[in-house]
């Protein structure tokens, strides 16, 4: 660990939003050639800090020192001029523009006359993508790429700047194991060249693997400062949460022998090629695979969103055919989508409207809603799931990510679904909220419900599933007991190598 003068030093940065003090005298020192983790629960103020450092907003008070000199970062352009590149938590690509343009957005290479130099845009973008080992054309329209590829473009934007400091706010939320490893390699290379890196993630396994020092925030305040001790996950967790939370993966075994759903050779136009599995009552069936392997598409096929082009679905022994989501919901299926913000929540509703959205038919007689029953049920669920009681009065945009996720799951508890498909249910939520979701999974399986769990966090998938189905190119190639798999097995089994002999892997 170097002891050079910090490249950047942030002194007593405070920032308040109406009603919250999001950052309270936060101090961070960033050394050249070091990866600095910024950790904490949802809403503790990480992104707020990052926005301040990137010039997106101004701090209410505090000082920013660059090589010991005070500077003001008045807008993102100034940050860029100081060699700061940021990958924001919110997607900041423009879907209608090409990959090359996105990489140089706000910073397009121009000729002497201020005219955009398209040849250079193309060649430079191609160079950066090649350096990152990303196989995407600079001319591709970014909106047509997969979520993971878009995230990589996002990172390429920062890489292209050749910055002295690079800030990444949850860059791996949409990435698979493989891409994460490649990103880490890239970051290590940059660290080697003396770049200073500020890294935010809720995936603590990653933190252990790559971060040199950490700053932990709680309620906007620093509770552990840089470089004090060795990095140790359980200490980090207790510092973040403020208490010892015990077991990270409180798995219960509730699977029974009864088969509730069977899929035989499902295929869809959107990329499912051959999905077969059986789901038992009380079971958590994990879907493991690399980014873009088609797990989300399998979920969509099961839920009636995408039409089946082949195969058969059998529910409680009877063949079923879902033509739209409503059919699946009526048959007792539920889908907690991958992206709760865009596909899950109604931000114009309070908890009640969100929780009952999938059950309006059952909640009404002759089209008239039973509002009393709705209030009561909402109240009970908020109590049972330990959701913030603010949710009763305020619209859900005021809630933390964890509370939001619980509300989406509560929707399907209320609709009394028997089979829940959870697509990346813990993405972007903090460790405390994750554990709450795991407990919720236990509660559900205990009550005899079955769960299909999709997660790119291999530790989570291994710990919380009873069995794991390996997904490759839209096909389920193998289903095995979770306890028979190790982390490495899962990585290798799902790796994108068609030649790999799977028998060998599981041997």
């Amino acid at each position, binding site marked *: 660990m170097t002891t050079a003068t910090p490249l950047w030093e942030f002194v007593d940065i405070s920032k308040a939003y109406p009603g919250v003090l999001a950052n309270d005298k936060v101090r961070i020192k960033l050394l050249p050639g070091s990866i600095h983790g910024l950790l904490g629960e949802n809403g503790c103020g990480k992104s707020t800090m990052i926005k301040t450092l990137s010039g997106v907003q101004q701090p209410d008070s505090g000082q920013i020192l660059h090589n010991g000199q005070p500077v003001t970062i008045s807008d993102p352009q100034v940050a860029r001029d100081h060699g700061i590149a940021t990958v924001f938590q919110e997607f900041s690509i423009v879907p209608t523009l090409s990959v090359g343009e996105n990489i140089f957005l706000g910073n397009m290479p121009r000729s002497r006359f201020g005219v955009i130099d398209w040849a250079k845009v193309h060649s430079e973008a191609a160079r950066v993508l090649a350096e990152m080992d990303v196989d995407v054309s600079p001319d591709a329209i970014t909106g047509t790429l997969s979520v993971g590829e878009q995230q990589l473009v996002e990172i390429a934007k920062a890489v292209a700047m050749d910055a002295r400091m690079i800030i990444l706010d949850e860059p791996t939320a949409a990435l698979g194991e493989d891409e994460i490893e490649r990103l880490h390699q890239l970051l290590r290379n940059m660290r080697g060249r003396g770049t200073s890196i500020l890294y935010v993630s809720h995936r603590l396994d990653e933190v252990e693997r790559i971060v040199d020092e950490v700053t932990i925030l709680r309620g906007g305040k620093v509770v552990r400062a840089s470089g004090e001790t060795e990095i140790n996950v359980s200490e980090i967790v207790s510092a973040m949460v403020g208490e010892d939370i015990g077991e990270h993966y409180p798995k219960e075994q509730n699977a029974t022998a009864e088969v509730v759903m069977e899929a035989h050779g499902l295929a869809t136009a959107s990329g499912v090629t051959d999905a077969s599995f059986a789901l038992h009552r009380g079971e958590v069936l994990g879907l493991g695979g690399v980014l873009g392997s088609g797990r989300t598409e399998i979920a969509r096929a099961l839920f009636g969103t995408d039409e089946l082009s082949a195969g058969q679905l059998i529910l409680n022994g009877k063949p079923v055919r879902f033509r739209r989501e*409503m059919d699946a919901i009526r048959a007792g299926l539920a889908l907690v989508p991958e992206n709760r913000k865009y596909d899950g929540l109604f931000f114009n509703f309070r908890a009640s409207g969100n929780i009952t959205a999938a059950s309006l038919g059952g909640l009404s007689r002759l089209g008239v809603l039973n509002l009393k029953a709705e209030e009561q049920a909402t109240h009970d669920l908020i109590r049972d799931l330990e959701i913030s009681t603010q949710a009763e009065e305020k619209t859900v945009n005021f809630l933390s990510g964890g509370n939001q996720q619980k509300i989406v799951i509560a929707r399907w508890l209320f609709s009394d679904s028997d089979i829940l498909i959870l697509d990346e249910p813990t993405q972007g939520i903090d460790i405390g909220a994750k554990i709450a979701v795991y407990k919720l999974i236990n509660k559900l399986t205990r009550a005899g419900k079955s769960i299909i769990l999709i997660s790119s966090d291999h530790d989570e998938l291994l710990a919380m599933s009873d069995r794991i189905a390996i997904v490759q190119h839209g096909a389920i190639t193998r289903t095995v007991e979770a306890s028979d798999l190790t982390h490495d097995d899962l990585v290798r089994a799902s790796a994108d190598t068609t030649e790999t002999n799977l028998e060998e892997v599981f041997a």
Partner: protein
Amino acid sequence: MKRIFDTQLIGPFAAMVIVALIVALTTERFLNPGNLSNLSLQVSIVALIAIGSTMVIFTAGIDLSSGSMVALLTMILAQMLKFMGIPLMLALPMILIVGGLLGLFIGLITAYGRIPSFITTLAALIAFRGLALTFNNGSPIFSLDPALEPIFYGKLAGIPLPFFYLVFFYGLAAFVMNFTKLGREIYAVGGNPAAAVLTGINVRKVQTTTFVIAGFMTAVGAILMSARLNSGSPNYGQTLELQAIAAAVVGGASLAGGRGNILATLMGAMTIVIVQNGLNLNAAPSSVQNIVLGLIILLAVGIDMWRAEISALMGRIFGRSSSGSAQKVKKGV
């Protein structure tokens, strides 16, 4: 009840009262009983049409077609009454059905053709006016039926009938929006269509339904227009769609969808009509009327947008008391 008269009504209600006070103080005859009942006549057509426009806005759509549809429907009604000898009692329900069908048509193209409602209703705005011109060589048709006028000018217990139509249809609309599955689905579709699909809400059906309602309410407005003028004309209803949208917007409906109170639209319409009435009573030229209406729209939306800032400012001026309320007003449904 609490649900219907929620905090979203406070702003539009306050705006209406303030405007009424200003007009009452500056204009002698404003508070004449005759003038007050006049107001319910003046507001009725645009306010009834605005029910549909508002519901479409709640789903994050927009309806630009209602003005032209009024023209078309008054011509169809006139044709039926004057040249086809269809009796009034048969012609009126037929017009309501035609209105609903035109709405259905627009709704189907919008929802199932995946064409933005701005486009479909812009096309309808232009084409319906053209269709209206195909009747009677494009000439107005007058003196339709003596029994038509009382529908607009009639009174019950001294109160103009349009007042009762307003109470009835706004009561019904408030009930639908707050107490029925359809109402909730309309807000859900406007709030997040992708999420609505994944929760099993038939988004296209809901969108189509709002256009059917809009078409039906436009037909109600067209009947009142015909009754008011005892005639049909391809020129009626020009810019009526903008007035209806203005009423919704002054009432605080968000064009982004998902947010707003249907009763606030009535208050928005009242606010606009009170101002126009006040200006008319003072014989203000139409130039002033236009400028004032433009400013009202801007102010109403501006105040809604800057509520947090204004309340913070008020807080700074009058002490901290009002600071909490800014957040509260955003309360959902």
